């Protein structure tokens, strides 16, 4: 059974109130989700609060999971991202420190040695991102990884917001075309 199929089984069982299955699901996925949350919030205590919210949401909504629409991990990571971003927005104007992968850094692509372990999907995605203008690709990564609004990122990078938005949206569309 593949990892994804095993997670589908655990989610199905959690949906029936099987707490032991839910614990297995937590053990299998919490480090991944916590990494994503920590990346966005950059603060351990807050990230643990969000992780708790995410799993209570997963427990409550397990019956709504539809394996025909998303993989279990994508579904769970999406919940984690949305919760983290919501928490980030609730912080208000607290300054965020730029990541290394800021837009003026020329090469923000995944290092080749990490790509060796990447899935086919990730390889294709990074290859497609690599066909874009480096600043556009970096803008896409910054938006996704840091959970910043276009406005916040535009201010930080000193770019008009319309320009940034256009880089990101058009860049993603081109990227999707390159993957097709």
């Amino acid at each position, binding site marked *: 059974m593949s990892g994804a199929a095993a997670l589908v089984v655990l989610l199905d069982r959690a949906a029936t*109130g*099987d*707490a*032991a*299955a*839910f*614990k297995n699901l*937590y053990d299998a996925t*919490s*480090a*991944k989700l*916590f*990494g*994503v949350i920590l*990346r966005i919030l950059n603060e351990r205590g807050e990230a*643990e609060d969000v*992780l*708790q919210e995410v799993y*209570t949401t997963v*427990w409550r909504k397990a019956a709504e999971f539809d394996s025909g*629409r*998303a*993989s279990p*991990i*994508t579904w769970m*990571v*999406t919940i984690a*991202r*949305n919760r983290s*971003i*919501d928490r980030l*927005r*609730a912080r208000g104007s607290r300054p965020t420190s730029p990541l290394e992968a800021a837009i003026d850094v020329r090469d923000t692509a*995944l290092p080749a040695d990490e790509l060796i372990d*990447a*899935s086919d*999907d*990730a390889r*294709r*995605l*990074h290859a497609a991102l690599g066909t874009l203008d480096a600043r556009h690709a970096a803008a*896409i*990564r910054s*938006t*996704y*990884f840091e*959970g910043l*609004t*276009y406005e916040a*990122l535009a201010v930080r990078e000193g770019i008009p917001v319309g320009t940034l*938005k256009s880089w*990101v*949206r058009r860049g*993603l*569309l081109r*990227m*999707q*075309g390159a*993957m*097709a």
Partner: protein
Amino acid sequence: MTGSDLDGDDGLAIDVALGALSRDALRAAEARMARDPAFRSNVEEWQRVLAPLDEATPPASPSPQVWSRIMAVIEPAPHVAAKPSVWSSLGLWRGLAGASTALAAVAAVLLVARPGVPPATELLVATLASEGGASLITATYDASRGAIILTPAGKTDDAGRTPELWVIEGDNPPRSLGTIDLASPESRVIPAERLKGLKAGATLAISLEPKGGSKTGAPTGPVVATGKLTGI
């Protein structure tokens, strides 16, 4: 892709999947997803496209307390155990009900066993309550992890003594699972072999012992709470 409406729905779907919207705009877009399946599919498609980006994010281990907090939230409210006849009959423990100043136990105590316990899926829960029916603590035994999670549910007064956790299985005398500290929650190791074989129907109890725990191997102080393990 041609014919995309980047200034309209297609652009919005990208923004939602990226997480680039303000709080209000995101809430509005989520409401839209709930009633507009085509828009929802559009967003989900972008989420699927972008998801592999997360592979580059290093995993991180949350502290064990996160799981016990989750457990405390999702656990169906366990019913207070019936009057603990086993303990009443022991006769050792009478006159204990009086103790009641505040020992506030806010967070959960996690007692983790050593690894190497054979996998099983059964979860057992006991609500440990005083003779008067006041819940003190909820104990959840997860055989697959070989761990007991204790979630304080009320207050008690340890009168300067050491709370010790016991199990009574059938007609056997109480067996110590170890001392616990409700005042400063911390991880403690209960040897897996002590937890092994815990079954539904066994009674858990907490007694107040001299500092460091009972020296005799049997409970010597007042029992402040008892409860039966039941499967969930």
